[in-house]
């Protein structure tokens, strides 16, 4: 159990003559509290894996420091950091049995044989893989490999777990149940965990807090609900949520609202609701919800938006019609219409 902290972390890679220096991680400050489940979320190439590998000690930062348990570990090799990492590929030792894989970190720590075997059995039991101990990794399914990788990480009782997209090699169905298990497993052991993913559903479901990264910088850190409801900028607003937040340009600002908050006018009970006519051009029916695509006018420039109507909204809508839609005023978010796209104070909208 320990606090993990990175301070002013910068990692540059030599991008060759054409690109000069590439800033994979560009001045990141971040703290994972003791026992916290911190998720690093971002699109591929945003530097989240590099950040994780720097915490692990597999990459040397160009500048800045990594602290584990209030000790500066920058420059120390991975083995001195008492961390465990689960790789995207699981990186099981293919020539060793499951048992030998799990005890490998203990042998490296020069633990007694009897103690080792006891611990391996404990870790295997926790993940329900006792019956696989004699097998080789290639005889295991994807889900079983993932558990072995977790058991190998767990067995040493590390200060910190680092997980690099551990679910991305599983099929969709298995991923959901593995996510569930991963969460209850961490609740049980209570070890500080840094989890890297590009999948917002994993991030939302697992994280105590989420750090959203883009181009090597942190855009926002906060609990899932805050990230979703109060995005700090347009990047977070459009990266999180499927479909993403609608952004309508108006007077150098962007007016944002989530698709599920854009509803037929009679479903928005507020005197100050913001009315906007929506010219519907397409409707998708997805797992009980109606996704209504169309162009809104009236609150700014005419913009294509999506509305997500839950099954409880029964207003008949057809493609080609124009309907009055509205958004509850509490649900509107305002951003600057520049490159940063930071949040701004609310602007007055003509109330329709």
């Amino acid at each position, binding site marked *: 159990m320990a606090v993990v902290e990175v301070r002013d972390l910068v990692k540059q890679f030599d991008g060759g003559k054409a690109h000069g220096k590439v800033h994979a991680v560009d001045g990141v400050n971040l703290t994972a509290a003791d026992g916290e489940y911190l998720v690093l979320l971002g699109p591929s190439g945003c530097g989240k894996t590099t950040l994780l590998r720097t915490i692990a000690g597999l990459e040397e930062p160009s500048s800045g420091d990594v602290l584990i348990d209030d000790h500066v570990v920058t420059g120390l090799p991975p*083995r001195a950091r008492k961390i*465990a990492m689960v790789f995207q590929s699981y*990186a099981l030792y*293919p*020539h060793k049995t499951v048992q030998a894989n799990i005890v490998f970190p203990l042998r*490296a720590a020069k633990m007694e044989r009897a103690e080792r075997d006891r611990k391996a059995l404990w870790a295997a039991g926790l993940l329900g893989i006792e019956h696989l101990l004699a097998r080789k990794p290639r005889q295991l399914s994807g889900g079983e490999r993932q558990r072995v990788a977790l058991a190998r990480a767990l067995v040493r009782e590390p200060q910190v777990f680092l997980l690099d997209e551990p679910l991305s090699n599983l099929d969709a169905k298995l991923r959901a149940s593995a996510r569930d298990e991963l969460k209850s497993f961490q609740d049980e052991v209570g070890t500080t965990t840094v989890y890297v993913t590009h999948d917002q559903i994993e991030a939302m479901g697992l994280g105590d807090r989420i750090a959203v990264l883009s181009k090597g910088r942190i855009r926002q850190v906060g609990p899932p609900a805050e990230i979703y409801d109060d995005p700090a900028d347009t990047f977070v607003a459009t990266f999180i949520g499927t479909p993403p937040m609608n952004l309508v340009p108006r007077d150098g600002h962007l007016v944002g609202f989530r698709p599920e908050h854009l509803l037929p006018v009679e479903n928005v009970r507020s005197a100050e609701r913001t009315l906007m006519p929506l010219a519907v051009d397409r409707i998708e029916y997805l797992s009980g919800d109606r996704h209504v695509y169309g162009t809104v006018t009236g609150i700014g420039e005419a913009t294509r938006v999506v509305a997500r109507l839950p099954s409880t909204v029964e207003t008949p809508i057809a493609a080609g019609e124009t309907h009055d839609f509205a958004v509850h005023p509490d649900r509107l978010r305002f951003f600057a219409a520049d490159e940063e796209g930071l949040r701004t104070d609310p602007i007055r909208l003509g109330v329709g």
Partner: protein
Amino acid sequence: MTVTDQRVEPTPVKELARRTLADREGALAWLFLLPSVVYIIALVAIPFGLAIAFAFSDVSAGDPSFDWAGMVNFARAFDDPVFWRSLGNTFVFTGVSMVFIVLLGKVLANILVADFRGKWVVRFLVLLPWTTPVALSSISWLWLLDSIYSPIDWVLRAVGLLGKGENMVWLGEPGLAMTSVIAVHVWRLVPLAAVILMAGLVAIPRDIDEAAKVDGAGYWRRMLEITIPLVAPVIAVSALFGAIFTFTDMAVVRVLTRGGPNDATQVLSSWAFYRGIDGGDVAGGAAVALFLFPLLLAVAVGILRVVRRIEVD
């Protein structure tokens, strides 16, 4: 759209319908295989058949007519102490060289995969011995190991390990001569083994080595428990290649020592050449050469099995 019961009669497309030779895979297979089949029959199968036939005959350079001689040539070989010496030497040279080739090859492969400035220069230099023809490089070694003008002796004298006017006589002493032959074999084959092993090292997923690092394993534990077991099949392949090239080579012995001093460095292939070609006893030479066959067969089977294991994993 209306549904009709009428089926449209297919009309062949005139322009594209012609099958060219490039479309006929059966014929192409034969065409492409033919050169190697001819090569193998002419240069491997026929000479091998001839060698077996000669071994049971009395053919010699002076009397090329073929007469059946039964086991006489083998009996003569068994009675010849030089044959046993050659057989023993062949195994000693092969075994000792193989060990050094794999050990040094592994070290060199680690250097080759390391990332540093100017690594292409090192790679180029490492591969030079392998690309030089054996006969040429052996002649350079002949000078390096010369009984009087050996540069190695100069160095030893300069360092003070050798007294003034003293010489090691590298190729004149039986023990030193054998060491010299082995050294040249190792020097020649280490680059090949290094390149094979390098391919094996590069094929190990980086994740696995990193996982071992995070798991707390130091350099030697990673080397012995992760890297070496994972490249074991490739190590076996490089060892077997090293064995074949040392086992069958006669150029090094021929150029350096001519089998001397006093047949101390004679190997099967050089002895067979000496008897069959230099001595004109074609039948006797063929019988000696046949003894190379069982071991080469075993090595070939070994290589194929290892390769199959790699494919299964």
